């Protein structure tokens, strides 16, 4: 019993000492914090590299990357932890934009800028938002499809879409972009199931599409590459490669390899490395008291929107 109280007393004394302590002196130069959606997703690895490279170039200390592991609660706790460690700016690629408010509020309190890269801003006012032009990506895929469909003896006027999970609100426009181009050209979108960004699930859905439509399907557009690879596997299995064209979105390495091998026919590529680096650049400007570059775009929440152009990777795995 006595031992316990001794420990308790010691702990309390240490705490009271800590309570009187003020913040540590800051390191020389700028320190940034970077929180990313999920490093297990190949899309974010180049983004991470871009951030690190730019920080190294500008002489900014970057705290170890916080990996949200695709978990919204982890995003909030990790990003707030980064801010608590006394960073000068936060660059974040949020898993759950709608949960950004407490992070942004804390950053506001500490007076540090917040730059959001990709996904969304969830109703908050941040300093800048960088994202690929998602809809345009889908449109480019649609355009490319219309360009090449003549090379394959495809008579069907049906197309299908496999969508990402409904909770990824910003990405829903990818399919809309695809529709923007193919519908006026006379195609009908017959199916739009949710593949939830899972290769496994997209594989099953594609098997069912094939069962339902057979060759009466010209193409399938998947809102990200993971699902496109799953759909391609199903099409290959049924021996229908080349009879149904497969398009993905993200431009990751596996998809490019699949295009070269003929299982996929294109993927709308983003430039995550460039986006990450640009995020650091904007934050650096703000920390140095400069104003941000002008942009004519404003996103849905009224934030400065820097759109990154997308490019199309075609069936040879090369940029179109």
């Amino acid at each position: 019993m006595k031992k316990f109280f001794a420990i308790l007393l010691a702990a309390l004394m240490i705490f009271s000492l800590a309570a009187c302590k003020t913040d540590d002196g800051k390191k020389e130069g700028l320190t940034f914090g970077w929180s990313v959606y999920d490093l297990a997703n190949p899309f974010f690895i180049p983004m991470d590299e871009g951030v690190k490279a730019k920080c190294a170039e500008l002489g900014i200390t970057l705290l170890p990357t916080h990996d949200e592991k695709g978990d919204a609660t982890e995003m909030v706790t990790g990003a707030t932890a980064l801010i608590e460690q006394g960073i000068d700016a936060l660059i974040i690629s949020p898993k759950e934009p709608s949960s950004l408010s407490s992070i942004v509020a804390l950053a506001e309190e500490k007076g540090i800028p917040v730059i959001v890269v990709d996904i969304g801003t969830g109703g908050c006012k941040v300093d800048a938002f960088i994202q690929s032009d998602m809809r345009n990506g889908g449109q480019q895929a649609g355009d490319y499809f219309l360009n090449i469909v003549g090379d394959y003896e495809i008579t069907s006027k049906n197309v299908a879409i496999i969508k990402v999970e409904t909770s990824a609100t910003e990405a829903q426009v990818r399919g809309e972009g695809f529709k923007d181009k193919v519908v006026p050209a006379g195609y009908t979108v017959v199916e739009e199931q949710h593949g939830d960004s899972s290769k496994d699930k997209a594989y099953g859905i594609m098997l069912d599409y094939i069962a339902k439509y057979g060759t009466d399907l010209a193409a399938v557009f998947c809102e990200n590459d993971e699902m496109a690879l799953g759909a391609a596997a199903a099409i290959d299995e049924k021996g229908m490669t080349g009879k149904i064209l497969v398009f993905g979105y993200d431009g990751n390495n596996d998809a490019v390899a699949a295009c070269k091998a003929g299982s996929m026919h294109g993927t709308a590529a983003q430039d995550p490395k460039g986006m990450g680096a640009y995020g650091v650049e904007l934050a650096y400007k703000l920390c140095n008291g400069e104003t941000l570059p002008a942009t004519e775009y404003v996103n849905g929440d009224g934030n400065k929107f820097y759109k990154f152009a997308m490019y199309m990777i075609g069936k040879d795995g090369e940029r179109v």
Partner: protein
Amino acid sequence: MKPTQPIKTSNFHFNIGDHVIIIALAAFWIFLICIRPSTFFQLSTYATIAKEASLYAICGIGMTFAIISGAFDLSVASQIALSACVFTTIVSKISPDNPGLGIFISCVVVIILGLLMGLVNGLLIARMRIPAFITTLAMQNVYRGLAQLVSNSPVPIATLGKEYQVFTSGTGPAIRLGVISPNFELVYIKGLAFTKILRLPLFFYIMIALAVIGTIILRKTRLGRNVLAVGNSKAAARIAGINIPQTQTITYVLVGLFTAVTALLFISFQGSSNYGVPQGTEFTVISAVVLGGTALVGGKGSILNTVIAALFITTIPLALTVLGIASDYHGIINGAILVFAFSINTINAYINDAMVKYRARKEKKF
């Protein structure tokens, strides 16, 4: 030989052996302070830990009751998801112009919903006698599915208007009362999630209050004693005349109640709702309860332990990050800690055995 002692009549038993987790936590924190004072000698770090741990701890209070009674509830994460979606739906659709009323009604509805979900779980387990694992596993899917039906996409509370942010992260400058120095004030008010008293988050005090209430229910009420008895031995409890189905049902209702409170704090913390969030939380909550020493077989347990264990579990990722261990390796460390914590008794026994054999051989007294 000790002279006979007078019989103790106090009801307050505190045996440190039952609360090893407190020593573990203290040792852990002292170790971190020595290794990295710049982070761990700061009250704000502990404030962050306390705030995050409070979510797991409050849910853990209810879960402690369930585990003491010999079962557990895998559906709590989905319950929180459903509650969050219901909350934002009510607040945004039913009374967007009257924030105070909206939040009040939503809170009430969430609590009632939590009680209902607990009741459903309890009835399935206690009356229909379906094993807890299966029931809560199935209900996990059902509740999350309902959440998706209620609200198909995330709803950030910030978009609903400034007044609603009082419930979450606050708007405008913070209100500071009792300012003692530029860095220290007695009360700091900025939205439910950021309000601090004595620089510790409001969530922390809510957690302490609920832990006290939970302990009182467990130790002082008949319900609490019944839960302990049922967990200890169903047969004995039946003989003692305890209504087992009723006790089990109320246990799950309690889980539902504490989970509902957790859901409200969760909404305040996250500032939004998404049917997919949180996921996997139930394992963390159960881990907190068992790490604290409450045995999965039931019969004994302590809410204080659960709270301390929650603080311990929450400190680990922060410690690992600060120590520079890449997040890829965190799983190995977490798993190893679990293994260690649960095999301590066995390892102890092995060592004792080995010591006895060694001494016997040394003395050669046969």
